[in-house]
């Protein structure tokens, strides 16, 4: 067909050499501006391939003479962000945790930092909303095993609970009364009845009356005469509505028979003091944080005392 190419006499343009029923097609050249743009894109592409990562190789692409990477961009932005936050981070680092409430701005920054860190380090056990689950305490409520002030929480975070190898860890162990034969299964049931009695879940049955003596002899040394708990040994309060392992008969039977002792890692070994401080501030802000250790743990009936909004944490 190519031999049919000819110069069209009217336009002076070459034809492409095709012919259908007498209709021919002109081989009109591309417009100049189009060609210039086209060649410009080629030149640009060559320059781009030299300057930037372009050719995929086995493990990574060619580097490009500018050395640009998206990771590099991210690093730069992160560094910039760190520089921006440095003053407040420095202030946070030198401020003792108990002084944070006096500085609302620092406290707010610490809480926000803690909120992020919590999602990374704590949410796996305590849940994203810090509501916990069986065996993992709810951090929103007003019941604390080891103390709910900022310093208490920080101490628990640094050294953990029953963390092997940490001398300052929160340490205690409830005896397995049933499994170790300290109490017979019947006695365990009596103790369960008494615990449910003092937590207002059951009436005063004969079993509970028998359990009262067992409780005084075996449990009160840690859990207190009235079951008000003891924070120095992390003995939970038993006369309230909050149960770490459940407050029903079956769960209580299991707890008294086999005993529980949850473990929390000593985060002081893994996280920097600043992060731990921020985590403590965040956990404290969830609603149950205490401004000071309560004098009388047993009484939370709530009598009107100070004007609302007047007291600081």
């Amino acid at each position, binding site marked *: 067909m190519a031999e049919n190419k000819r110069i069209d006499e009217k336009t002076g343009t070459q034809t492409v050499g095709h012919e259908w029923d007498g209709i021919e097609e002109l081989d009109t050249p591309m417009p100049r501006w189009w060609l210039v743009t086209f060649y410009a894109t080629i030149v640009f592409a060559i320059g781009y391939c030299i300057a930037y990562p372009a050719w995929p190789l086995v493990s990574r692409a060619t580097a490009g003479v500018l050395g640009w990477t998206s990771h590099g961009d991210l690093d730069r932005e992160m560094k910039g962000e760190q520089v921006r936050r440095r003053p407040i981070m420095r202030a946070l680092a030198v401020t003792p945790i108990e002084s944070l409430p006096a500085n609302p701005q620092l406290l707010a920054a610490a809480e926000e930092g803690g909120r992020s860190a919590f999602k990374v380090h704590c949410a796996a056990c305590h849940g994203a909303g810090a509501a916990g689950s069986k065996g993992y305490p709810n951090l929103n409520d*007003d019941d604390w095993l080891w103390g709910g002030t900022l310093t208490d929480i920080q101490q628990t975070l640094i050294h953990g609970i029953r963390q092997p190898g940490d001398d300052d860890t929160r340490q205690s162990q409830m005896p397995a009364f049933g499994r170790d034969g300290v109490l017979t299964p019947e006695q365990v049931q009596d103790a369960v009845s008494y615990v449910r009695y003092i937590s207002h879940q059951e009436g005063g049955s004969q079993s509970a009356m028998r359990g009262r003596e067992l409780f005084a002899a075996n449990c009160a040394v840690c859990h207190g005469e009235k079951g008000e708990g003891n924070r120095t040994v992390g003995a939970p309060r038993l006369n309230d509505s909050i149960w770490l392992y459940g407050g029903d008969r079956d769960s209580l039977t299991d707890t008294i028979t086999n005993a529980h002792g949850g473990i929390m890692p000593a985060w002081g070994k893994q996280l920097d003091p600043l992060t731990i401080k921020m985590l403590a501030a965040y956990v404290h*802000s969830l609603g*149950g944080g205490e401004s000071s250790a309560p004098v009388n743990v047993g009484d939370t009936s709530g009598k009107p005392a100070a004007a*609302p909004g007047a*007291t600081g944490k």
Partner: protein
Amino acid sequence: MSHPNDLVSPPRLFEARRKIFPKAVTGPFRRFKWATLALTLLVYYVTPWVRWDRGPYAPDQAVLVDLAHRRFYMFSIEIWPHEFYYVAGLLVMAAIGLFLVTSAVGRAWCGYACPQTVWTDLFQHVERWIEGDRNAQIRLEKSRWTLNKVARRTAKHAAWIAIGMVTGGAWIFYFADAPALARAFVHGEAPLVAYATVAVLTWTTYLLGGLMREQVCQFMCPWPRIQAAMMDERSLTVTYRFWRGEPRTRGLKRAKVDHPVPERLDAATSLLQLAERPAVADRLVGDCIDCNACVAVCPTGIDIREGPQIGCITCGLCIDACDDTMRRIGRPTKLIGYTTELDARAEHAGAAAMPPLKRLLRPRMLAYLAIWSALGLFMLVSLGTRTHLGISVNQTRNPLWVRLSDGTIRNTYQVKIRNMEARPRLVEVSIAGAPGILWDEHGERTGAGRSVRLRVEPDKVAKAQMFVAADAAGAPRADMTFTVRALDAEGGEATDTSFFERPEVAQ
């Protein structure tokens, strides 16, 4: 037009621009244009420098678009981002106002008030000032590149760029404190975006006002197209009274002999007929002496005698030019004048024109006016009665509820309180609708009541975590409201709804 099969000389897609050299003119419309030019430029340049005292907590600039802090100040009105519908309403009002003006007096916006017109006008004055009037400009255009031409052209473009810089320079003052920004700008300490804005606006002003001019109106602006739909036979437009002007005579007016133009002489046909019968032409002469003054002064370079057209911005300068000519040859003025299509037809037929009031008070105008005023009134009332206090309550969803030691259930809420006043306010947040006690992050549950008080910083949104505790027995989900009330003399309150949630089965 070439024959479709003629491939040798295909028609060009674009016509090259014919450069326009508008001649200076004097007259009432020119004076009116001077006045609008002065007024609009004055408003544009002076507005950012007007001060308005708003107290110690807000800027004292009368008109300020504070993008950084997301506030828009306009004299006594302060708009927050959530109230952007006021700005939208203002834009709708501007659009309907344009409809109203257009259907009443035609393209008055295009002719007098449009920034493109104002700046082009300014640029043309500068051009005449440096290069001389129309004829001098044409001569200079045609002349070789002499030192004189180089000097004048350089001066002209320099002046244009200077105007462009001043234009862009004024723009940035609407977005920051004008005196402070001016100081920083001169000392090279202003933000980069300020310099970039000035640079971009300098370029666009120079390009649009200096180089593109009428092409913007004819090819870029959508408004002339929209206006075609806005105008009707009762809208004012610049009209050449062809029934008076035709047939034109070139040179000296030979119509001293009072030969009235016969009725029913159409512009299109008459010229042809007259050309065929030159003997008659001597006697039948119109007022137009074809002096071309109307074309020479036109800023868009059109010939109004060809009838209404999209290039006509109805600036009225051809009226001034024609009136001048008519006065000189002793003929009545307003051969070119503002008239409506209806009036033109009536005048052509020898009937009386419609009284202006009747023309203006037509249903279309009244409808536009009604919509425009209703919108304006609604915005004024709503601006005047809007509350300067707001509350937004967001219930914490994880966890929904928390059981406390004594068995009660606690919910947590993120509460935002908006203080739109430029002063700190003491407010009280209270709950209603469901039983329970309320306290916030700074308070204690012990002693909590149904409300808490807090101080909200001026012109800020205060964020607070609040807790509500209530008995475990009750509906799994109870409606409740949070109300914020200002505890100062001005008062005012706002309410938001939320829920109190409990475990499904109370243990």
